[in-house]
């Protein structure tokens, strides 16, 4: 057997334990008074709304206004212009940007927001605010879906024009200097109002508000009579598109209604988190005891590798380094983690049993370990590869934008996605820790003199 030097065991084990500590507890330091996170620990995991409580809602355009048959409910000029009454992707984006603007203005920053063009739905998921006291999803959802009020205000803050004057807004590039700008088109009624406004407030700032959030405050540089204005201001492409979407949001030909929603109060969630935490610790201790009692040294090595596997999976969830956003962890996510740890235990059991078998057929210590690890590899790899296939399918099918999007639209339930993610990360961790490093440790520890006894590796007594 190609023996691995003795110190390797200690180095690998130490590195795994150090890594585990950093992944569980994180590394924080102070820059002045501000706590900085260099490495994220368990406490930095972003828990899904099923755990810490929150709201999930799906919005759809209200058919009363957008309905194509008997289109009399609206006097909007865009419909009167004979334009398509079909809801366009841009309109969905605009509606999405309304929700986004409102969420940010309420101080909710860790929301998830998807638009589904196929079924014309907008899906939003957000946790309760830290200081929220009346956990009422209905109010929260209604606030988001309320019709946006776009207003143009003069320097003294009075409203001079509202969203009904806007025909469309679009992000464009100035051909001459390559700057991004927003092209604002007004409808027939808007044209006149805007002409008056730009005349009266020439060289002054007109502020554009959505509800009570200031979007932009461009200065009027000319008296505009043709109803077509350019808003410039050193925009990036992204900023220009965002502003255009927001302005369009104030001029949508439909209102948003809530087509489905769910809310979970945070106490319920907190309970389940504590419970799953206890369950995890108890289960780990039981498994560790079983492994060490039944398989002795290989069992002990397996426990170290398992700690490493759990740590690596946790690191994949927290994204380890402070600069990355943590993955959202849900209850099925925890279940995926449990399954992958189960696979990790299985990999070690297969190897340990195989070593035992080789002892029974009369092999020496070294050749039993050599043969045992070699013969068990294909079963472990094949077993884990199938799980990898399952988890990749889950990621592709239940991701926010996925391979089945064209049939089913974008995902409404991200919880199964979390299951696939933790399962995939856990299985990859298993290949690194449970398959590769646990073998390295095993082949190294066998070189230590006091360890060179068959019974310590599951062989018959001396």
């Amino acid at each position, binding site marked *: 057997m190609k023996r691995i030097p003795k110190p390797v065991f200690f180095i690998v084990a130490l590195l795994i334990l150090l890594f585990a500590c950093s992944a569980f507890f994180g590394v924080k330091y102070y820059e002045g008074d501000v706590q900085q996170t260099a490495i994220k620990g368990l406490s930095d995991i972003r828990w899904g709304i*099923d755990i810490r409580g929150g709201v999930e809602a*799906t919005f759809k355009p209200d058919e009363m206004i957008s309905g194509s048959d008997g289109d009399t409910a609206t006097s909007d000029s865009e419909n009167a212009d004979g334009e398509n009454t079909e809801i366009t992707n841009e309109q969905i984006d605009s509606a999405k940007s309304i929700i986004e603007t409102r969420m940010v203005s309420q101080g909710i920053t860790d929301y998830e927001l998807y638009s589904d063009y196929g*079924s014309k739905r907008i899906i939003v998921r957000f946790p309760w605010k830290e200081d929220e006291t009346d956990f*009422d999803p*209905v*109010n929260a*959802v209604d606030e988001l879906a309320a019709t946006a009020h776009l207003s143009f205000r003069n320097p003294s803050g009075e409203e001079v024009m509202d969203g009904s004057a806007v025909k469309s807004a679009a992000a464009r590039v100035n051909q001459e200097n390559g700057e991004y700008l927003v092209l604002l088109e007004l409808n027939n009624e808007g044209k006149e109002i805007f002409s008056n406004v730009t005349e009266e407030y020439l060289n002054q700032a007109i502020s554009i508000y959505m509800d009570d959030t200031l979007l932009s405050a461009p200065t009027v540089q000319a008296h505009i009579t043709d109803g077509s204005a350019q808003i410039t201001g050193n925009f990036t492409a992204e900023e220009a598109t965002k502003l255009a979407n927001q302005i369009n949001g104030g001029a949508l030909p439909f209102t948003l209604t*809530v087509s*489905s*929603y*769910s809310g*979970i*109060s945070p*106490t*319920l969630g907190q*309970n*389940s988190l*504590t*419970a*799953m935490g*206890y*369950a995890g610790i*108890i*289960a780990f201790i*039981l*498994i560790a005891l079983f492994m060490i009692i039944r398989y002795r040294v290989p069992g002990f090595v397996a426990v170290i590798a398992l700690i490493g596997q759990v740590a690596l999976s946790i690191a994949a969830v927290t994204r380890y380094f402070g600069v990355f956003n943590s993955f959202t962890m849900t*209850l*099925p996510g925890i279940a*995926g983690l*449990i*399954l992958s740890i*189960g696979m990790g*235990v*299985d990999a070690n*059991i*297969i190897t340990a*049993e195989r070593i035992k*078998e080789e002892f*029974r057929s009369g092999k020496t210590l070294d050749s039993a370990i050599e043969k045992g690890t070699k013969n068990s590899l*294909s*079963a472990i790899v*094949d*077993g*884990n*590869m*199938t*799980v990898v*296939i*399952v988890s990749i399918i*889950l990621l592709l*099918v*239940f991701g926010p934008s996925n391979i*089945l999007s064209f*049939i*089913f639209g974008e995902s*409404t339930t991200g*919880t*199964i996605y979390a*299951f696939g993610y933790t*399962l995939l990360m856990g299985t990859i961790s298993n290949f690194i820790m449970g398959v590769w490093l646990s073998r390295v440790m095993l082949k190294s520890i066998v070189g230590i003199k006091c360890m060179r006894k068959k019974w310590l590796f599951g062989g018959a007594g001396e």
Partner: protein
Amino acid sequence: MKKTMNFVGKSKIFYGISLSIIAIGLICNIIFGATLDIQFRGGTVISYSFVGEIDEEALRDTIQKATPENTVSFTVTKDIMNNTEDEDAYAISVEFSGNESIETDLQKSITATLQDAFPDNNFEYQETTSVEASMGFSFLLKCLTAVAIASVLMVLYVTLRFKRIGGLSAGVMALVALFHDVAMIYFMYVIFHMPIDSNFIAVVLMILGYSLNDTIVIYDRVREERRLAGRDADLADVFNKSATAVMPRTIATSITTLVAIGTVYVVAVIYNLGSVQAFALPMMIGIVSGCYSSLCIAGPLWVAWNTRKSKKA
């Protein structure tokens, strides 16, 4: 050397056991029918917590009055975790008939009515799920498609990796074992009246992976034993030998997984976490079934298929 267990010889008994469980499941399915969760069929459930005794009739009237145009039903369960010394805590979930989502205003008025009518019981809002029927159905289709794609790819993988022991037959028999396990989980949902929800899909996917892993470990051993025994060896012997050899591993792995998920289940019962219980229990059944189907169904079927083929040849 330990005695070789005869799996193939007892295969008729195994098939009998499985077929009768499936038959019982089917009969239950016809009698009771399966319930789809509102995640899939659409509808609304609102949950509240409250403390102290309450008159169920008065409760029903109050809720019904708040929403005259809908028929509602509700279930009350004891909430063990939040019990205080002098008052019992309860959880109530109010389910609306029909499979459409409700207006947000309606929920507001129900919450307000409950709090007004029973001021002493400290009604608190816990949870809402409200799903539009068409969205629920599309989600169900999507889940089924995911299961189908995953199964096909797994069988393909087995077929490619186990060419030496008959490739396709190995893949198909592994698939039969997987159907067996999915059927077991499904019947478990039917018999216990648990609604089919996204947890069911997650459990099914997990068990597909787990059971196939079991099957693969055995196939892997068969592949190896067959190489050692040579082409002409009796397949039944080869399989029995392989299955016996992997038995200790199968038992050890099943014990550890069952212990881990059993722990989750027990903790969930203590903390009264319905969703986690509904997740853990079918998982345990799936693990037992996955283990059994690999050893007693997929293997003997594979032997039968290949023995017949070689007789014909």
